[in-house]
């Protein structure tokens, strides 16, 4: 490749390519001596790490050219359990990572968690966060989280945010304090440092935002406020316990009295500005995966539900929701087909004046009554169907009992149903009573399709006295008996309602010939009237079951949803 490839505009300067230094010596770990205890300190990543902790005395040191400078003096042992020891290598998603540091942080509620700092020179740093036995691999994101308004998400519950192509919802906001550190870090780590953290989740993903604030002087230059606080503390004899006063840059959240900070701000005319909005995205990792990746003998026991651990009950709830959805659709489909097939069709609607019927006087004990019969006509049933009979009359201390014969004209098969109408009343005022009514209905079982011949045989006390009187006046009239219906096997008789009066069963076959009707039975005015309506009805009971089934499905769903929400509460 020629030197002029990608040549900038003429007139610009450039270094000569031959000025490039020879291949630099490989960069490897360096050994130092702790300026506090004199013990050996290994710096794994010289050139990157700006903080390293002495493994012997725990002093916080800072590489400065060829020596380590003492930043924070300690003489103690690291008190936390290191599940992944510093220096351990592991392979995650096929990439080799080396654990170079560990930060223990805690919130104000006393909860603590560990952040293992993993390093690969080509891919950079990752945090492997362990909290209550749950592991999350966290990576810094170069972008910002955007809320619904299309602006960067900020402190506090901002609903949902979009980060790195993922939508996450607000979960929590807290202040995190560095409890302890071990290993080495590419930032000026110190114990006691605090950060405001906002967390968002969408299991298995989690995102967090930590903003960095910084103080500037009147010239717009960054100011190390900790140093100013220390100076202030000395001059005003305020006792300062802070050892980390020589920080070059401060995050502005040092744990000192806000009053002192305010005093210093006004004294030096400082301005506080948010200089960084650092977003990271994490993915839940199963403990077994971490154990295998780093070949760990032991890992901490899982407690509760991890912050971004996929809720196992969520899958079950969603499955139940999906099944419910499918079954709901299936049920709706079935029901609509059933409803489509369900129909109500009037097959016969007739007002019958019994004046045209044939009557015969009968006697049951001391009770006189009339037997009659008539043929309402033929009905046609197109499909297998239930038939609803509805009889109506106008009764006045009277009763009618009816036997309906339905005879299939093709097969000769017969069906018999009975019903009864009666209406009695009496008394007055408080003692007023009535019994029965002017209508009755009953529904047959399913009738096969076909042409049916109808024959109704009934009994009544209507006009019985007039009939008797007419008999005396006019005498009997003999005529050929009416066509007795062909009686096939009676499939089933639907029992009539128990009446207020004893009903004599009427059997057309037993109808005696000879005692026939008077020619002019009580005139039209007195003739009992009957309205008969027959409806062919297709059964729609399956819809009722469908509705019940859907309710059951919803109940099932609610159960799973409640279990899912309870589990969510463990986060």
């Amino acid at each position: 490749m020629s030197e002029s490839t990608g040549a900038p505009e003429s007139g610009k300067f450039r270094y000569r390519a031959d000025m490039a230094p020879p291949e630099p010596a490989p960069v490897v770990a360096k050994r130092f001596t702790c300026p506090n205890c004199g013990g050996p300190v290994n710096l794994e990543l010289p050139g990157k790490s700006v903080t390293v902790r002495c493994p012997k005395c725990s002093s916080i040191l800072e590489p400065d050219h060829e020596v380590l400078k003492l930043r924070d003096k300690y003489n103690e042992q690291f008190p936390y359990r290191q599940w992944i020891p510093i220096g351990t290598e592991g392979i995650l998603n096929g990439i080799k990572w080396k654990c170079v540091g560990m930060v223990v942080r805690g919130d104000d509620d006393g909860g603590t968690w560990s952040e293992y700092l993993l390093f690969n020179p080509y891919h950079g740093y990752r945090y492997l966060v362990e909290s209550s036995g749950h592991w999350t691999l966290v990576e810094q994101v170069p972008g910002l989280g955007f809320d619904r308004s299309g602006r960067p998400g900020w402190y506090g519950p901002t609903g949902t945010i979009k980060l790195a192509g993922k939508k996450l919802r607000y979960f929590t906001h807290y202040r995190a304090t560095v409890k302890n550190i071990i290993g080495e870090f590419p930032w000026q780590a110190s114990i006691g440092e605090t950060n405001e953290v906002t967390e968002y989740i969408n299991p298995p993903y989690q995102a967090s935002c930590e903003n960095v604030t910084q103080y500037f002087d009147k010239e717009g230059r960054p100011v190390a406020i900790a140093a100013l606080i220390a100076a202030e503390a000395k001059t005003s004899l305020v006792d300062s316990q802070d050892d980390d006063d020589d920080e070059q840059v401060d995050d502005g959240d040092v744990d000192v009295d806000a009053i002192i900070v305010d005093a210093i701000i006004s004294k030096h005319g400082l301005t506080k500005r948010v200089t960084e909005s650092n977003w990271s995205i994490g993915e839940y990792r199963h403990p077994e995966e971490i154990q295998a990746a780093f070949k760990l003998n032991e890992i901490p026991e899982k407690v509760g539900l991890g912050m971004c651990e996929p809720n196992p009950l969520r899958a079950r709830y969603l499955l139940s929701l999906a099944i419910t959805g499918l079954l709901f659709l299936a049920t709706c489909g079935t029901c609509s087909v059933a409803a489509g097939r369900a129909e109500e069709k009037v097959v016969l609607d007739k007002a019958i004046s019994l004046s045209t019927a044939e009557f015969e006087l009968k006697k049951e004990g001391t009770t006189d009554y009339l037997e009659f019969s008539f043929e309402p006509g033929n009905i046609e049933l197109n499909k297998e169907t239930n038939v609803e009979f509805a009889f109506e009359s106008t009764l006045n201390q009277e009763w009618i009992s009816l036997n309906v014969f339905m005879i299939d004209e093709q097969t000769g098969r017969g069906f018999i149903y009975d019903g009864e109408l009666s209406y009695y009343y009496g008394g007055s005022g408080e003692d007023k009573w009535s019994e029965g009514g002017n209508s009755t209905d009953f529904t047959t079982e399913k009738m096969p399709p076909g042409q049916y011949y109808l024959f109704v045989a009934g009994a009544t006390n209507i006009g019985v006295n007039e009939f008797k009187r007419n008999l005396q006046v006019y005498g009997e009239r003999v005529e050929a008996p009416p066509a007795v219906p062909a009686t096939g096997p009676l499939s089933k008789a639907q029992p009539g309602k128990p009446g207020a009066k004893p009903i004599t069963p009427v059997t057309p076959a037993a109808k005696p010939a000879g005692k026939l009707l008077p020619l002019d039975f009580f005139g039209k005015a007195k003739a009992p009237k009957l309205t008969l309506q027959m409806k062919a009805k297709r059964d729609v009971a399956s819809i009722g079951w469908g509705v019940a089934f859907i309710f059951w499905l919803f109940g099932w769903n609610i159960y799973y949803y409640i279990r899912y929400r309870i589990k969510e509460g463990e986060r």
Partner: protein
Amino acid sequence: MSVQSEDALKEVGQTAALVEDGSPLKLGATGSLDGKTFKIVGRIQYRHPVGYWNEWYLSMDKDQGDAWLGEANGMYFFTRLKKDAKLTPGLQITSINAGESVEIDGKEFFVKDIQTTKVVSGEGELPFAFEGEYEAPVVDCVREDGTFATIDFSETPPLVFIGRAVSFRELNLMHLRSVYGFKPADATPVAAGAQA
């Protein structure tokens, strides 16, 4: 030290030596992004309050001009100089907060971070010369679609670089350095297995 101007080498002042920052990139490394191949021909090393940052000067193959690859601790940004970019009128680095919006050529960007960096050294071919260290107040901005912009206030008017953040994998880098006991083969899952 000599530097060329108008294809004639011109002497420039001595700059500080590069600091070994453990970067896995080096001059002569090649790569490709979105099918466009490039070669690293130059480098500017910046110093942050903590740590170092490199802007690698890229020569794009097939006369596709030049570009920059920002790199620090495994984060990579591919940008190109946007000439005569129109910024929010009166924009000053001393008054911006992270999260606030900045307009670049009529597009709204949001400030991600504000850094007062120092240019400490350089090597190889560069499109400009510098003498000694100089301060470079820099504002990084992003858009929701992932567009990334750096506004460099070391010049007036500020220099604007526009591009996007890229992952190591996307860059298909070759001829890398071995650092800290890691070999380039440890950078990709397939090779990592073969390397062992």
